[in-house]
């Protein structure tokens, strides 16, 4: 079985129903791995946040508390399912589905080994970008249909924030696309003899921040801003629908980690270990960084979030495209280290230039 999953390119040619077998194995495999990893990653995050806060975290359910999320799932799924009397019933029901499905679909174009992916689309990147926008629609629908002012505010924030961050997110990928010369993710991984994070540090920086905002993790977790919006867009959801939203949230985080690993960290490539293991290791690394940020940073305000996207990330993304484009157009045979260093200089220079406008620190409190 492992052979089949790891080297499925061979299935297509040898078996009579090769394509369908391939489809079935991958579809089931992706969903199974995704759902299992969500359960493990939720536990992982809670343990990790626990360590950041100098405590232990869940450790009673099962060995090391690893069954904690299983218990959560059992409990949530058997809870009463409340639909507010003044909610829009159909949309209220539909919203979690709209939010959840595109997240799973995105994994279809991510290769788990050389040539091993569900659908080798030539426009893989475009597909991911298109799909990632749909989730916000589901969240907006849910927030609106709940007939609750907090969730309405939250869903308004979703729209503005997610639409703004789409733009730097897409532009940051243009550099990678130019270096690869293809839109297919499989090609992109194959092209990464050197991980793109070294060639495209600026692109990585923008992509990572913008996608943190896309999945609304701290410091951009405005839609779930506990301290002001109580629980955000899913405030009225309970039971299975709430579980779906909860699942969506973590699936998004995992998908984001997968994409970051695939696009910038060399995907499944790596010595000695099997490709899938490498991919999972890289996903875990990126996810840990997300959790680290969550456990450390405060939340930004909505206008600051928007200003950051339009005034800071967007110009940087455009500069990145110009720089990388000039290399590709005028000096295609440039050694890769030079591209990387030029890019890094752009990133550091830009941050230093912009930080002139900030006035950090400074003590305004004196003792007398």
């Amino acid at each position, binding site marked *: 079985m492992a052979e089949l999953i790891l080297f499925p390119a061979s299935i297509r040619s040898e078996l009579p129903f090769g394509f369908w077998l391939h489809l079935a194995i991958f579809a089931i495999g992706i969903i199974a791995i995704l759902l299992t990893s969500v359960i493990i990653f939720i536990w992982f995050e809670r343990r990790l946040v626990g360590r950041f806060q100098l405590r232990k975290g869940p450790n009673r359910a099962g060995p090391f508390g690893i069954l904690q999320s299983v*218990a959560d799932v*059992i409990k949530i799924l058997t*809870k009463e399912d409340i639909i507010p009397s003044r909610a829009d019933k159909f949309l209220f029901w539909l919203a979690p589905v709209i939010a959840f499905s595109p997240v799973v679909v995105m994994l279809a174009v991510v290769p788990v080994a050389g040539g091993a992916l569900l659908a080798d689309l030539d426009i893989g990147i475009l597909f991911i970008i298109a799909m990632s926008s749909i989730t916000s629609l589901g969240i907006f629908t849910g927030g609106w249909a709940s007939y609750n002012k907090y969730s309405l505010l939250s869903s308004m924030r979703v729209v503005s924030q997610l639409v703004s961050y789409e733009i730097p997110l897409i532009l940051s990928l243009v550099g990678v696309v130019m270096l690869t010369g293809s839109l297919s993710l499989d090609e992109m991984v194959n092209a990464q003899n050197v991980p793109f994070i070294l060639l495209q540090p600026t692109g990585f920086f923008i992509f990572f921040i913008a996608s943190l905002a896309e999945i609304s993790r701290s410091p951009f977790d405005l839609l779930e801003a506990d301290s002001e919006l109580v*629980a955000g867009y899913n405030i009225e959801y309970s039971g299975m629908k709430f579980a779906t939203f909860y699942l969506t949230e973590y699936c998004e985080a995992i998908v984001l980690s997968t994409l970051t690993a695939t696009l910038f960290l060399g995907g499944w490539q790596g010595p000695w270990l099997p490709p899938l293991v490498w991919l999972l290791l890289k996903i875990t690394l990126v996810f840990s960084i997300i959790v680290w940020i969550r456990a450390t940073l405060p939340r930004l305000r909505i206008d600051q979030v928007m200003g950051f996207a339009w005034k800071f990330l967007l110009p940087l993304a455009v500069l990145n495209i110009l720089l990388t484009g000039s290399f590709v157009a005028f000096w295609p045979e440039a050694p890769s280290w030079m591209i990387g260093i030029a890019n890094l200089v752009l990133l550091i220079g830009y941050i230093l230039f912009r930080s002139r406008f900030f006035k950090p620190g400074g003590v305004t409190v004196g003792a007398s």
Partner: protein
Amino acid sequence: MEVRIEPCYPEIDAHESRVIEDLKSSSTQPIAEPSGWLDEEINRNILVTTVDKLLNWGRKTSLWTETSFTACCTFEFISTSSSRFDIARFGMEVLRSSPRHSDLIVTAGTLTWKMAPQIKRVYDQMAEPKWVIAMGACGISGGIFADSYSVVPGYNRILPVDVYIPGCPPRPEALLAGIEKLRKKIEQSSISNKS
């Protein structure tokens, strides 16, 4: 120094006072705790016990607390959830602010009649199954403030309480013991009889 005049909502105030008065007049007696689990041994069977075991394990392992704390005991609850006592070990560090997501109200603090409708409303908004822990003397009987004109003598006037934790305030250890009691109680409940 111009100070703008505060807005005023007489209709809302009047409506809220009506709600308070109604609740006050209708809750003169304590509500008995849900005690259906006591005599359920009779209608058990093999299938239900197995399902029960799984469900009850899930429910007792993941008790998410509603953040509706009123007064002093809150700080002992927060102490319990902080690094030293770490309630997260039992999977309880998920403090949900929305009643729809939470399973447990810990009534940390004095309840006043003005607050009572809000707490009752939070309880009503929670999805079944749900539990209530009355924490501290005020939660049990009004405690030191029981004689006051504005204090509800015990949460059990308005909510069915599952576990009482004495103390003013109870120590974190006492709270953990109370939570352990609640977990035992959940273990013994069954889906086949509605409490």
